[in-house]
């Protein structure tokens, strides 16, 4: 069974956690949270987050999709669609 949206958010939260220095920012994450602007993640680390996401969910994220992963919500959309395609 495909994971629920809250479940994907929860797993994504755990993936981004080590890349966020400001622990305060992590307490108010929702679908509109912007990874670079709101969580101050170093843009260089986005490639690492994508690798971690691929490993965690067993999916492939191409460059085009990676560029669209700017907010938590858009990341969840992409993860969910890749999981659905794999089913």
């Amino acid at each position, binding site marked *: 069974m495909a994971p629920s949206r809250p479940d994907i958010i929860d797993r994504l939260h755990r993936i981004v*956690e*080590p*890349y966020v*220095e400001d622990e305060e920012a992590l307490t108010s994450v929702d679908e509109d949270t912007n990874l670079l602007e709101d969580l101050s993640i170093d843009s*260089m*680390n986005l*490639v*690492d987050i994508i*690798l971690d996401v691929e490993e965690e969910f067993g999916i492939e994220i191409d460059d085009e999709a990676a560029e669209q992963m700017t907010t938590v919500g858009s990341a969840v959309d992409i993860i969910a669609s890749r999981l659905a395609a794999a089913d």
Partner: protein
Amino acid sequence: MTRRVVITGMGVVAPNGVGLSAFETAVRAGESGVRFIQELADRNFACQLGAVPPLEASHLQVLTTLERKTLEASGIIYGLLAAVEAWSNAGLDVPGNEEDPDWESGCIFGSGIAGAEVMRDATYLIDEGRVKRLGSGAVSQVMASGISAYLGGRFGLGNRVSSNASACATGTESLLLAAEHIRSGAATRMICGACDSGGPYAWGGFDAMRVTNRRSNEAPEAASRPLSATAAGFVPGCGAGALVCEELESAIQRGATIHAEVLGGAINSGGQRKGGSMTAANKEGIVRCIRHAVENAGIHPREIDAISGHLTATLFDPIEIEQWSVALERSGSQFPYVNSLKSMVGHCLSASGAIEIIAAILQIKGEWLHGSLNCENLHPKIAECIDPERVPQTFRKHAVRTLAKSSFGFGDVNTCAILRRYDPE
């Protein structure tokens, strides 16, 4: 007036002790950090011994969560831990993310190969067609300036930030380059030192060259035998040493603890001529380096109380002692005391000089000499040149005011630093 340069901070990650206090205890007690390494035996190494710092999870607490997750280069981890200890030992702050960098502070921190294991893993991924899996950390962990780049960010350094490399002379060279930069007036303080990674991928080349000790796998602690008649090659090691060098007036103004003064030194090369080669030293190069260091420090050779030698436990040890004797014009019972920390920690390659300088400063400060282990049977050529009593076999109390530290490296490069107990006069 010449600006005086002093050392106000020290940090160390050594095979026989992680952190200054553990390291000092181990060096005073003559504890060996040499162990049998299964990974080497599994890969058919002739020398299956190594000296690796005993890192525990608690040591890694000074790293950020992200650094703990992404850092795989053991040399960079050692270097960061040593440098963070040195910076804090010097009583220095770190500017916040939104503050100006410290324009007066810089870094010259070297390495030989700080991330051998990262290169190994990256090679496999690339050959499997999975280059994307390298992630963002492969470049910063294998580039030659990796360690100084990490330190510059960690401490918010705004002065010169660079890495030096001169093989096994790297650590001592970094101190001399840092001191020169401060003396020239271009910086107030510099963090310097060196680090190296260990393990099969860092050490394989040395095993193939037959320069490591292949005869002592059953007796690790007896394997590193500098100055001994039965010296049979070095034991490879790894780790890091870090020093904060500072202009004297700044150190006094801050009320910093001054560990020692850097009187001067010299860096040269034998040009790989007249007996010198990639791996062997032109003897005249060594003599000139020592003489220039003494001259640069403005002292008489008689003033040197002790020598912390390069002394790796190869056929080169007797030659090194002979060149010291020629350069200082001292022999027999007039020769300074001499010991080799490599008898405890093996040869930590590019990091060796930095770790050994810290041991040297601890000896100056504490007024003692560490024992040079495993040389009960002094090499006959050494015994001909100097009174065997000048080589302490075990710990002894002795006031060392002025100490000369040498490190030599592949490429026929030489370094010699002159350190002195800080005297306010």
